[in-house]
């Protein structure tokens, strides 16, 4: 079997069964590191990616159901040399400890900022309420999202 997926603007054909969770296709077939396995139960948010702009838990999303949807991962935002405003803000705020949750946090935040470019702090916290962080980096993450929102406003 093979399935076709559009990830970060490029269409890929991968040799996976349609019921394969998107997470494993992204990580293993496409060698994209951003989305992480955290629970496989849609409880922690470490695997969050965007499907047509909406945050989804890739650990429970069958890859074969996505058709021609646009899938965006953290790798689709920017690079170290040319970071997306969110990536730059996370670096500027040093908003990571172990960092395992961070890509999921950023993709959820991306979805928030796309629909609400200037959220309040409470709105940021609320939007990230289902993304778990264990190191206690929460407040830096919130500051980074607000910083990215401000930088958006200036450009």
């Amino acid at each position, binding site marked *: 079997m093979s399935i076709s997926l559009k990830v970060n603007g490029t269409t890929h054909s991968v040799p996976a069964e349609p019921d394969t969770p998107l997470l494993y296709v992204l990580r293993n077939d496409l060698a994209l590191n951003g989305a992480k396995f955290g629970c496989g139960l849609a409880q922690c948010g470490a695997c969050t990616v965007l499907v047509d702009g909406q945050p989804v838990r890739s650990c429970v999303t069958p890859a074969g159901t996505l058709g021609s949807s646009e899938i965006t991962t953290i790798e689709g935002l920017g690079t170290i040399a040319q970071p997306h405003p969110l990536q730059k803000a996370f670096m500027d705020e040093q908003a990571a400890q172990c960092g395992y949750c961070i890509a999921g946090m950023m993709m959820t935040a991306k979805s928030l900022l796309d629909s609400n470019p200037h959220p309040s702090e409470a709105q940021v916290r*609320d939007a990230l309420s289902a993304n778990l962080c264990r190191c206690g980096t929460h407040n830096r*993450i919130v500051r980074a999202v607000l910083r990215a929102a401000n930088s958006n406003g200036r450009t």
Partner: protein
Amino acid sequence: MNAPMISRRTFTAGMGAIVVAFSLDPGTAVAQQARAKLPGSLDKNRMLDAWIRIDRDGSATVFTGKVELGQGIVTALAQIAAEELDLPLARVHMISGDTARTPNEGVTSGSQSIEYGGTALRLAAAEVRSILIAAAAQKLAAAPDTLKVADGTISAADGRKVTYGEIAGAIDLKREASGKVAPKPASTHTIVGTPVRRLDIPNKVTGGAAYVQDMRPAGMLHGRVVRPPRYASTLIDVDQPSVKGMPGVVAVVRDGSFLGVVAEREEQAIAARAALIKSAKWTLGPALPDPDKIYDYLLSLPAEAKVVSEKPAAEPAAPGADHKVIEATYRRPYMAHASIGPSCALAQVDGGKLTVWTHSQGVFPLRGNLAVGLGMKDDDVRCVHVEGSGCYGHNGADDVALDAALLARAVPGRPVKVQWMRDDEFGWEPFGSAMVMRAKATLGGGRIVDWNYEVFSNTHSMRPSEPGGVNLLAAWSLADSKKPAAPRSIPQPAGGGDRNAVPLYDFPSQRVVNHLITAMPLRVSALRTLGAYANVFALESFLDELALAANADPVAFRLAHLRDPRGRAVIEAVAKKAGWQADQRGGDGKGRGIGFAKYKNLSTYVAVIADVEVDRASGVVRVPRAVAAVDAGQIINPNGLMNQIEGGIIQSTSWTLKEQVRFTPDGITSRDWESYPILTMPEVPHVEVELIDRPTERSLGAGEAAQGPTVAAIANAFAHATGRRLRDLPLGPARVKAALG
């Protein structure tokens, strides 16, 4: 930092450096001599080239046995080396935690990396710099003390210059460190003490390869393991052939009661694991204790008692009319590390040699345990650290390394990556022990005149570094099974279950007893702070109870019993920063409290003031704000230190309000984030931290310094808010509602 990639190059130590065959052991010639003790980790790793190599391009390769766990340690160590070598940070390349390449610095734990690893690197780098200057002096025919060093270039007064790269070939670092070259005075530092950016963060926010989970060498297979229903279950039967026939399955591995599967694709390994779980028949083994009576049960078990502090009264106070004896018992439940990413390892067996890429905190102890567990020689096993998800102590990192090795052994030549599933991690990680703390004190004249404290706990270290056994899960269930080490308590002054059990306060008489409960009904080991979280909770809660009985302000009461000037300074600083008022009334569900400790009584000083809000109807406790003052001696990286303290406060708030491992006699029932909830983004307190820099004092570790003071501050704030004292953790809704009636 070790990039999570495999290439042939990672198997050779070459890297184009001048010193290729580097020395991890001082060799027999010096070993015969009586050796002076050297500071920090230098004492056991005495050769300069074990720490530092100067490369032909003028950069330095720095080797550390300490590893990155998300605490920023590799960046801080790079800062120290760059500072002493007079190199820009970008020209210092860090290699950490590799049994084939780096010094053996034991386990990265106990907030000791800056103190031990940092000290060693500082002295080694200062000495290497002096050797470079001596070589430059010869080349430039100038007196060494007339030379100036900047950015890896040594200049004579007349303007002639030589770079580190140009003289790298002329120096010999294969020599024992003297430990006698003085490092730079703090006043001249330009890299140490500055908030340089973490080296690991750019990859982490752009999807770069950052974790062992991100390794995928050519030909890699995926493994999963199947754990039994209970700790001592044994495997009776499993239908291996039908699982072997599932799509993509390469091997089903059974060895005694160890069961696992290797498949071409990850989802195939997961599906095969599910089929094995369905098919496997196990003996149940002994039931777990009744969770409702766990503390009584633990207290009924055999224990080794040891008096860890005793200070008889110089003049036993005659019981005066105003003498009052107060007693209280405090308890904390089993708690989980609960890493966001389940433990993971990559292993490859090739030509009788095993290589394991692991996020273990101690690659050398892990290697030793793997070798014994697998019946191999130490020299045939190499462990390389690659980051994983944050661990907060001894989680499944070491165990999964053996799992991966066992599965890799079934498919020689092929690398096998194993990641635990979420229920494996919660069900099988070693928890932080449940504990009981009994305190009794006498008040006289408004002061504490006598103090008695007893702590009852399982051990807080069943790491692979413990001698006399194999502390790896799978080793206990192999056909040729190995036994775990016997539990023991880490001695004072650091302590294990009794960490921070000895008060820093100056009481005229005191007695502190540590009871090491030797039977372990639930698997336990090191969780961040070991016993300190529970002991500081008990000690500082009890201090507030005594202050209340003495009708004293909690801050003033602490200061009245504390001479240590740095301890007083953090208490005074936090009180000022938080706007503490001695006569502030609590009640109406709002209150504030203070907690203080000097971690391990040896390390960083932290005082925390927390505000709480208690909703009587729901029983929910919120911590909207926490303020801290911190003295970690000389600060290496203020941003990194701040990050550790903020994280410690937030994690401790989560422990305190929510966390408790659930179990029944049938087994562990906390298996996911619904059955083991942690603090979420909207519930996290705002945190304000004041750092007190002491450039002339020793740098102290801070990763575990804030957790004890935080729980105490919250518990004291709860009492202030409600007038009721809760002595059992966590401060969850059911307990709060019951207390508030």
